[in-house]
């Protein structure tokens, strides 16, 4: 049977979640030879405010590119968590930044509270790459795309000169997720 996996990445403008979504989609679509779509929602101004980026991954054509039954939710801020936590699939995965998102009412979901931003700051040295750290964590927890594919996608997509930094961030995320087991 076919599968459809829905990921929603949320946070605030400037946290790079659109890029993260695009990388996730490319990893799945180009390197893992699945199908994938990525879409985002804008505030009224396309700048600032809560931001949402959605990735659908499937082995079939993806007709409806919006998340309606979410398998995995990432939230980097409390505001975005509150705003975008609906539409979760029962038993789905919720990954939040443990510092920014304090208030998680978890019933029926697998909730992971991870120090995403802290990891970016302390282990990679730049808060800006928290999005990629998050990708590492997502890859580790969900296994929806291969590590290899994600690495390729990151390398291809991030600004020239920052590849190493970002790959490191990915690795940090990945390892953090491994420590969970």
């Amino acid at each position, binding site marked *: 049977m076919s599968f459809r996996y829905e990921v929603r990445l949320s946070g605030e403008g400037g946290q790079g979640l659109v890029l993260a979504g695009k990388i996730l989609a490319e990893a799945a*679509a*180009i390197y893992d030879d699945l199908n994938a779509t990525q*879409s985002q929602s*804008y505030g*009224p101004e396309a700048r600032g405010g809560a931001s949402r980026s959605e990735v659908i991954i499937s082995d079939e054509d993806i*007709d*409806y*590119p919006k998340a*309606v039954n979410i398998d995995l939710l990432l939230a980097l801020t409390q505001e975005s968590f509150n705003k975008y936590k609906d539409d979760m699939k029962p038993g789905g995965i919720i990954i939040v930044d443990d510092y920014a998102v304090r208030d998680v009412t978890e019933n029926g979901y697998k909730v992971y509270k991870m120090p995403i931003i802290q990891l970016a700051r302390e282990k990679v040295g730049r808060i800006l790459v928290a999005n990629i750290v998050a990708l590492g964590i997502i890859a580790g927890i969900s296994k929806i795309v291969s590590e290899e594919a994600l690495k390729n996608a990151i390398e291809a997509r991030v600004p020239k000169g920052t590849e190493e930094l970002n790959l490191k961030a990915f690795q940090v995320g990945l390892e953090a997720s491994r420590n969970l087991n």
Partner: protein
Amino acid sequence: MSEKSNGKARVITGNEACAEGALAAGMRFFAGYPITPSSEIAEVLSAKLPKYGGVFLQMEDELGSIGAIIGASLTGTKTMTATSGPGFSLMQENLGYAVMTEVPCVIVNVMRGGPSTGLPTLPSQGDVMQARWGTHGDHQIIALAPFSVRETFDLTVRAFNLAEKYRTPVILLMDEIIGHVNEKVYLPSEDEINVFDRIRPTGSLEEYLPYEHTKSRVPAMADFGSGYRYHVTGLAHDETGFPTNKASEINKLMDRLDQKISMNREDIIDFDEYMMEDAEIAILSYGSTARSSRHAVRLARENGINVGLMRLRTIWPFADEEIKKISEKVKLWIVVEMNRGQIAHEVEWAVAGKIPVFKVNRIDGDPINPLQILEKIKELANVQL
């Protein structure tokens, strides 16, 4: 939505695919004015066009943008502009000019919520009737609507081909979802693409009639500067292109403008049928809502309901006869669109009371969820079948 091809897989948005399709079709002049959610088309082309020896120009407004692409097209260049509702409204006068003077060009409208400034970042299909009737005076128009990133590429190419073939502006009606969704595609290589170029005159300057009443109804079009000096005017004109107030000449022009589209409707009209063979309920949709509809069809089939989808790729001219024909086989229509039922009205007209026409609409900026459609299908399957 990712039909394989020689190329390698890419994940790109509809707006990017539109830019790529235009370049593939030979577009070498783009003039535009930024507006959400179409701006990325301009942004991609501002970087790429010089690499193709083409010209990108950001104009002072949309009035100027369409003026510039009509002017540039007259030199023999394939041209395009892209905008959204408010800008499309501003282009209406010159859109009519392009129709009247028969200048090929492509106008992209990535639809967002209206009316007015409305919902600048949210999707809609509210400009479908405007595409048909936005400019003053009676006229024919061609408008296409893609439902995927790959199809955006394809229909952009097709828009140029139709514009060139029929010497007319062609409107590409995208919507915010299609414009902004990133999707896996394999873009075709150059030799996989059919590109049509306008017919140019071959005879002598003296014999050249730029608005000739030919059998095909489409006169040959000379490039400015190629030796065929002629006159172009938005006034009613005769076959030589000069203004006339003579009823007989005017009728000849008006009829030809009408016929070049209406006589060729089969060539222009294009649609897709999905699970229609045994359908009792027919959904009609286009653009991004056709994705929701197709999804809903699958779900309904899983529920054992015989439902199919007619998906319009050509919005104008309208597929009324095709719809009429299908109406003989199905029991009812459900028209799904992100507006109050603009195309549903046309379906009702085409069906002329033979079978009922129902609507699924949404105008609040939220996309239509497949479940919303499924619900309607179920409800009607119970009551009507």
